[in-house]
């Protein structure tokens, strides 16, 4: 293929489309990182693994609903419609359990935040290795719930699953933004992020707000896991680490604790990554991507939307 301006533009647009899809996964995970951090000032390092569990749960629920050969099951579309909320319910239960079993007891005993973060990291490893122990190291394949239809838009390949994923991510972001900025519970979440001590004095149960935050974050991560399975059917037990870590970095770059930050950071990271990938050898991808993010943080240590915590009088 001869080098031409047109090819470059098509390539660029193709990478943009890919970036949008990958950014959607990052966003769905980063939002949960950011929500939990906003409320608890805790980096819930098990969050990436909640995403992984979401993918696996999605796989099991979908295969169960579709039913093995010979038995009558649901149609793929009905499966999709039912499996997504079920996956989200189960991952939110997982998130709530993590909070109840791992974080709350430590915080009640006044443990330093560092210990809680290390505990979160351990919980993530437990989930990951628990999965390996349970299922073995085999890679499971996600069933095809929606036949992939590829559209060719001026040479750029886009498919229906990709579109579905990007639109879902945007809708989830808008919903979370609405909850945090417009609802009573969101107001309480913002209040906790500023001052945990005073919330009970308003007659508001702090734990209820914390649990709600974990439900929200984990449900969204579960949704992300499910969508990831639809787009990349091969499930891997370490996907929580590989994708989850990047989502965490995206949340930090965007300004952790800010819903907008998680969203913008996720797409920024995805674009940088896909662009480096497109025009440089792929081994450079992470090196360049993270160097650029480092520069951004260097310039704005609290992330793009983050506010420095000023001393309170």
């Amino acid at each position, binding site marked *: 293929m001869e080098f031409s301006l047109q090819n470059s533009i098509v390539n660029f647009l193709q990478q943009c489309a890919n970036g949008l899809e990958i950014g959607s996964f990052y966003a769905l995970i980063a939002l949960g990182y950011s929500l939990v951090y906003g409320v608890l000032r805790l980096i819930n390092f098990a969050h990436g693994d909640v995403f992984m569990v979401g993918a696996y749960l999605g796989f099991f629920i979908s295969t169960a609903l579709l039913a093995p050969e010979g038995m009558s099951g649901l149609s793929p579309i009905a499966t999709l419609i039912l499996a997504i909320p079920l996956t989200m319910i189960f991952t939110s239960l997982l998130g709530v359990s993590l909070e109840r079993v791992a974080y709350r007891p430590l915080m009640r005993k006044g443990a330093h935040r560092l210990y809680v973060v290390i505990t979160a990291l351990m919980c993530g490893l437990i989930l990951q290795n628990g999965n390996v122990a349970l299922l073995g190291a085999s890679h499971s394949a996600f069933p095809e719930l929606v036949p992939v239809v590829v559209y060719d838009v001026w040479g750029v390949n886009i498919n229906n699953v990709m579109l579905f994923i990007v639109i879902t991510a945007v809708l989830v972001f808008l919903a979370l933004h609405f909850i945090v900025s417009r609802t009573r519970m969101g107001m309480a979440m*913002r209040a906790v992020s*500023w*001052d945990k001590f005073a919330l009970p004095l*308003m007659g508001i149960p702090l734990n209820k707000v914390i649990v709600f935050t974990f439900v929200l974050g984990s449900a969204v991560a579960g949704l992300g896991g499910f969508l990831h399975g639809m787009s990349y059917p091969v499930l891997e037990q370490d996907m929580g680490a590989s994708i989850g870590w990047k989502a965490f970095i995206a949340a930090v770059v965007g300004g952790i604790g800010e819903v907008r930050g998680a969203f913008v950071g996720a797409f920024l990271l995805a674009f940088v990554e896909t662009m480096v990938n497109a025009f440089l050898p792929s081994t450079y991808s992470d090196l360049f991507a993270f160097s650029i993010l480092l520069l951004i943080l260097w310039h704005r240590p609290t992330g793009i939307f983050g506010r420095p915590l000023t001393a309170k009088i």
Partner: protein
Amino acid sequence: MLRVSNLKAAYGKIEALHGISFHVEKGEIVTLIGANGAGKSTALKALMRLPPPESPTVTGGDITFNDVSILGMPAHRIVHDLKMTLVPEGRHIFGNLTVMENLQLASWSRKGEDTDKEIQHVFDLFPRLAERAKQRSDTLSGGEQQMLAVGRALMTKCTVLLLDEPSMGLAPLIMYDMFRTLKRLNTEGLTIVVVEQNAHLALKVADRGYVLDTGKIVAEGPAEELLHKPEIKAAYLGG
């Protein structure tokens, strides 16, 4: 109404209250005075049943509200069920929320009720807050923040209000205004327990007072009496 008997409270292993007893009757203003570290704030935080580590754990004695022990009650239930709340030391307003949002949040436990009237009542008490209703509350001055902290507590529809050092960091005029407002709220029926370093001011408005020293109550009585006791004058009222 509110009765504290032989209360012992500790932060971890360090005991901060060594068995104090006091009581508050409906409609009273009671003040706890004493030097820094005497245990005044600890007593209020224990009353509110706020969770450790910021607040103490009760290791002995009892706190009763209308003769029912409240030791097993979490703070948010005390606010909601007993209508008692605290304006904490340092105000602890939600700086990232607007003035209006701070007030609305405090009416959380009364979902669905029409709170416009109560917000209006707070604005009547503190007209400055009305002017700044849409402003982020960390942009308020210290005095305005204290007004917001009190206004926010009133939005919980409390009948017993605990205040921890309400005069801290306030200019004298604003401080007197604040105490005048507290007195007015008291005549409207609010029971008040106020912890103060400015013992003179507190005893002036209070009905009764208790003097704390290193976790023990060393004197008590009608405020007027305490104001004129020579040893109290010498130790807490600047001679």
